[in-house]
């Protein structure tokens, strides 16, 4: 809201964001806010943007938001269309890696081996399957829209900067935020930020910015840690850490992290010889 000076219309897809922010007839949104359906938030936002253009409100910006289910599965067609038409909307995905408020069902963003209500920890390959999933930041980049960025709730300054940056562009923009769900991931609430930080520090969740399909900046890992440290504090991965840790599966997840580190260049920057300048500045 600060990035737009309060001149903002928000469009929301169905999701837990609505459950806690707008339990009818109450709302915590103190801006113009629309809900339509689960699947059509990007299309509604397109319409709002078009209406603002027709009415000459060039300063009013449009934000659409959804969870990972509404983004990568149910609203995907509308979103891809919005990207393809380069409509002037910032679309924000709050990714908690499953359909959480309906009872933790798997989504296209659920990571491999994670237990959900629909991918139980049973059988020879417990939890969610190892597949490609849907990596929406990469799909958005493939549309070559002006701006794509990822962020986590562990670095709020970075998140603020990226929203600010997104508002400097016109056209379709996409911001993908990792938001751990304490209940669905099997975490103590207090560890929410910590686990988001570990997602970045393991390399499992790359934090970066891209413009017109090209990576522009990446947030380097500061203190790299093995994926065990991230997985073992979440009960959705508890089946990997029974009497015998499931080393084979953990190694496959580590391979995903390693591939991200190589692909995005996330490796830690070696400490600079003279750091006094940076800190004093």
């Amino acid at each position: 809201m600060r990035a737009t000076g309060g001149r903002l219309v928000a469009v929301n897809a169905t999701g837990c964001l609505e459950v806690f922010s707008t339990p009818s007839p109450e709302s915590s949104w103190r801006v113009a806010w629309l809900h339509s359906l689960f699947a059509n938030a990007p299309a509604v936002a397109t319409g709002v943007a078009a209406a603002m253009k027709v009415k000459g409100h060039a300063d009013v910006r449009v934000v659409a938001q959804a969870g990972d289910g509404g983004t990568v599965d149910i609203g995907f067609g509308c979103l891809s269309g919005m990207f393809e038409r380069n409509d002037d909307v910032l679309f924000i995905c709050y990714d908690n890696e499953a359909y959480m408020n309906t009872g933790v069902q798997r989504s296209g963003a659920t990571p491999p081996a994670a237990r959900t209500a629909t991918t139980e920890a049973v059988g020879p390959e417990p939890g969610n399957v190892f597949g490609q999933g849907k990596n929406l930041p990469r799909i958005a980049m493939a549309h070559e829209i002006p701006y794509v960025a990822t962020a986590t709730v562990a670095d709020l300054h970075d998140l603020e900067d990226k929203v600010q940056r997104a508002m400097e562009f016109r056209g379709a923009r996409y911001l993908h935020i990792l938001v751990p769900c304490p209940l669905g991931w099997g975490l103590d609430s207090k560890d929410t930020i910590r686990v988001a930080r570990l997602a970045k520090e393991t390399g499992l969740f790359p934090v970066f910015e891209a413009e017109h399909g090209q990576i522009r900046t990446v947030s380097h890992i500061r203190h790299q840690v093995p994926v065990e440290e991230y997985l073992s504090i979440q009960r959705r991965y508890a089946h990997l850490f029974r009497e015998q840790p499931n080393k084979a599966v953990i190694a496959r997840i580590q391979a995903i992290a390693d591939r991200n580190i190589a692909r995005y260049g996330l490796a830690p920057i070696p400490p600079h010889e003279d750091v006094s300048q940076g800190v004093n500045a």
Partner: protein
Amino acid sequence: MKDLPFAITLDVGSSRANRTGSWRVERPVYVDRLPPCTDACPAGEEVQQWLYRAETGDYRGAWERLIEINPFPAVMGRICYHPCETVCNRAQLDEAVGINGIERFLGDLALEQGWPLPSAHGDSGKRVLVVGAGPAGLSASYQLRRLGHHVGLVDSAPKLGGMMRYGIPAYRLPRPVLDAEIARIIDLGIDVDLGHAVLDVELERRVGHFDAVFVAIGAQLARRVEIPAGDSARVLDAITLLHRVNNDDPPLLGRRVAVYGGGDTALDAARTVRRLGATDAVIVYRRNRERMPAHGDELEQALGEGVTMRWLSSVTRFDPDHLVLEKMHLNEAGFPEPTGEFEALDVDSLILALGQETDLSLLESARDIQVEEGVIEVTPTLMTGEPGVFAGGDAVSEQRTATVAIGHGRRAARGIDAFLSGREPASPASREIASFEHLNTWYYADAPRQTRPELERARRASTFDEVVGAFAQTNALFEARRCLSCGNCFECDNCFGVCPDNAVIKLGPSQRYEIDYDFCKGCGMCVQECPCGAIEMIPEQI
């Protein structure tokens, strides 16, 4: 439900109606935990508090906070063995904050700028006699004067400073710095009587109409051991050596000098001897390096200046031209035992640095004062068995450092103030220590410690110039900013940012935060993400 037409935009109510605070079973509470540096400071300095001010570049504010407790920052920034740095939580992250160097920077800046000490607060009409003008006596005089008492400070020496002047060599503490910090205290209006040896405390108290006395006479007598030595053998104790050098009257010692002992005084003596022109300065010590009581930094500097060590050796006798040493070995309890093996060490003179004792003859007339093994017995406020007579510094302490003495001076001043007004002395509330486990160090930038320049070794062996240099302003600021502010909120806004319920309310600069318990669910995220451990969870009373 309101009776409204179908499919119309509703007037929305605020979701603030949903008071999520009722879900809570634990509540976060802001606390000020005790930082380890502050806990460890023998002078009682609130280290983190003054560092916090220095971090913002408010050096005056930092210095003012510092001298509330300790009027000698420029001196302490040079000679203190900084136990604060030993316990600094940052040492577990990279390296301890260079607190001592920042203290010196602030102390020097204050002298350069001429910042005055706070003046006396009113006039109590009470008179206090302070015997001994070393760090304990001067610290007590400063605090007593500020509390409005009349202070008479006496010392048998011709100059003020005690062991800071007569014990500590000038290469560690340049005299202009010492003189300036002492003068600032005396300028508060303290009656000074030098060259005055107090022989009987009770008599002095009566004659001078003093309401209370602080005995801070130090430990000036060198402990001796019987070492058979020929007539021509040159044997001297370290205290006398240092005293004479500091009085510009250095003794003639020859080219090869042995120093017997393993404390800081032994190192001071050996380093002084090198500067007086000795080619060989050998420290003979009965135990090994691990068991040496001297501080590590001092030993490193001495070795760097060409001082050599004879570990596990005791001096048996001093024959003409050489010492006879017996080799020792440590038994299981770590005590040195003789081995019956002897060796010779060619030396011209021997310095004994075997510890010091206090001359307590001035207390003989005060029968209620108890003395146990040469140490005066005192209460926690440092009062002796005689009402109104307090004692501190080396005369009552096992840890004989200037820092401990300064702490004693302040403690005694508070005890004396309470005694004079008939109050019970206030005992500070104990606080939980902010240990490393309380911190979330993710939020601190990686920043290695700055080092202070040192005088080149080649120049050290010949001059009494100061060895350790000062921080420049930028280094001092960088170093201050490395402070983790353990246990004390520094308003980083993390709690405000991470709270999922917007239940943390910002109260404005330096006002910190408040928690809105109507909406705080007690998730504990603020506690977990607080970098400095300044929030704790406590169970709700249900």
